[in-house]
């Protein structure tokens, strides 16, 4: 019994970090441009397809090369998306940008269907196997997810708080007018932010590919729960997204002990609704 709880908590933490990354990825864009990126879950799917579909299954590259090339590819796509959608629309009413990102998501899904075909597939041999410590069995995928996500979160925090471009990103998030007056090139900062966000999306796609089949709907649930992570932790506040993500990941896994496993997904949304009713500011109470 005890070992089952520990295993559930560990896989909960792993999923929690995925939700936290999702929360971070759209929080970054929200802070930099004031736009909610509704295509973010599709960008995760796109990352998984580029990695799994093109570089691994298609071109038979090694996993490391595949990951690096995927990151470069999505960074280039990020520049295009920034220049075509986010920058031209940044001063318009939010509804225009929301519609644009929703449509971007549709375009990506249909493009995926055309280019890679509609049949779901998996990445053979990627992060398979388990580790056994005493009588606790942990899958390697979960360990890698926890380590990679933790490194990603720490690197991002260092970047945002210790480097000049990172500080400029925080300035733009806090006060766009004053940033311009300081001579910060707001457009460049937005492009950098969107690239970082895209790279995180791609990493999420890669990290979840051992857990899920690669399909056009693979990230729907992750995207929604990542959104819930942001709300539960404190919308727009990066550490909040991490706290929210971990809470959701652990709670939903433990819930599967008490309720039938098919109801697992409900836990996150019950939490979301409860927080919206009782504490809309989120656990941390901060918004930026």
């Amino acid at each position, binding site marked *: 019994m005890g070992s089952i709880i520990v295993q559930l908590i560990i896989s909960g933490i792993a999923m929690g970090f995925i939700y936290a990354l999702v929360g971070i990825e759209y929080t970054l864009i929200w802070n930099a441009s004031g736009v909610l990126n509704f295509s973010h879950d599709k960008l995760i799917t796109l990352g998984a397809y580029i990695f799994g579909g093109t570089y691994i299954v298609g071109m038979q590259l090694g996993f490391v090369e595949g990951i690096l090339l995927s990151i470069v590819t999505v960074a280039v796509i990020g520049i295009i998306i920034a220049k075509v959608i986010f920058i031209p629309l940044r001063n318009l009413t939010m509804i225009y940008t929301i519609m644009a990102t929703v449509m971007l998501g549709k375009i990506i899904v249909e493009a995926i269907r055309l280019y890679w075909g509609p049949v779901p597939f998996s990445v053979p041999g990627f992060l398979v196997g388990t580790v056994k410590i005493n009588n606790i069995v942990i899958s390697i995928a979960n360990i890698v997810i926890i380590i990679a996500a933790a490194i990603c979160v720490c690197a991002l925090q260092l970047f945002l708080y210790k480097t000049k471009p990172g500080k400029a990103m*925080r300035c733009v998030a806090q006060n766009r007018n*004053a940033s311009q*007056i*300081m*001579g910060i090139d707001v457009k460049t900062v937005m492009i950098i932010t969107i690239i970082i966000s895209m790279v995180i999306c791609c990493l999420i796609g890669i990290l979840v590919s051992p857990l899920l089949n690669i399909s056009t709907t693979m990230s729907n649930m992750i995207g929604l729960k990542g959104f819930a992570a942001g709300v539960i932790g404190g919308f727009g506040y990066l550490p909040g997204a991490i706290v929210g993500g971990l809470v959701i990941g652990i709670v939903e896994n433990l819930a599967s002990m008490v309720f039938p496993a098919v109801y697992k997904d409900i836990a996150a949304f019950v939490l979301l609704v409860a927080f919206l009713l009782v504490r809309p500011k989120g656990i941390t109470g901060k918004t930026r």
Partner: protein
Amino acid sequence: MLKINNIDAYYGKVQVLHNVSLEVGSNEIISLIGANGAGKSTLMKTVMGLIKPRKGSIEFQGEDITKIKNTKIVSRGIVYVPEGREVFPEMSVRDNLEMGAYCRNYSAKEMNDHLEQMYAIFPKLGERQKQLAGSLSGGEQQMLAICRGLMSDPKLIMFDEPSLGLAPVIVEEMFKVIVRINQERKIPVLLVEQNAYMALSISNRCYVMANGMIKLSGASEELLQVSDVKKTYLGG
């Protein structure tokens, strides 16, 4: 130093500035007074390149800067201390000051020297350097905004309503500091103010703006005596 020649500026279709000309000489304090909505802040933003004029030109140190990008204008040495302070609320006082030097690539030592200079002007900022800027009082935020502007060693500094919403004692301190900056650092100052009496009393020359036009200009001492100015801006 700064020469604004006959500019027209628009917000969309609405013309805000009509044929405005203004000059700031080296080492001068120039004040710009006028009612709300006269176009004073718009003029500052046009100088900063945030709004592009449709007609006319802006020269800085003999160079035409009308078409130059906003980020380049900052590195040319024009600094704007905006109305309402506009500090970065979730960053520490120190980080705010460092961001003021964004357009300069200071070494760690140069950065520290500059920070020390700022803490010498307002010791309060030194005491609170780790505190978040959003938690400072209005007066302290204004001090921070002024120092943030000075961090990049500007060649011309423009203050937009530095007395807005501050207690009278602090207003006086702000004006003293502005005069000090002008005298000690030999930086020309363009001061936009609603507090017309204060502005006139510390400036060499003054421009009076109304409805997007310069209505009157001249030596501040003389303007203090002009009955129109007295009636409209000095309360009798």
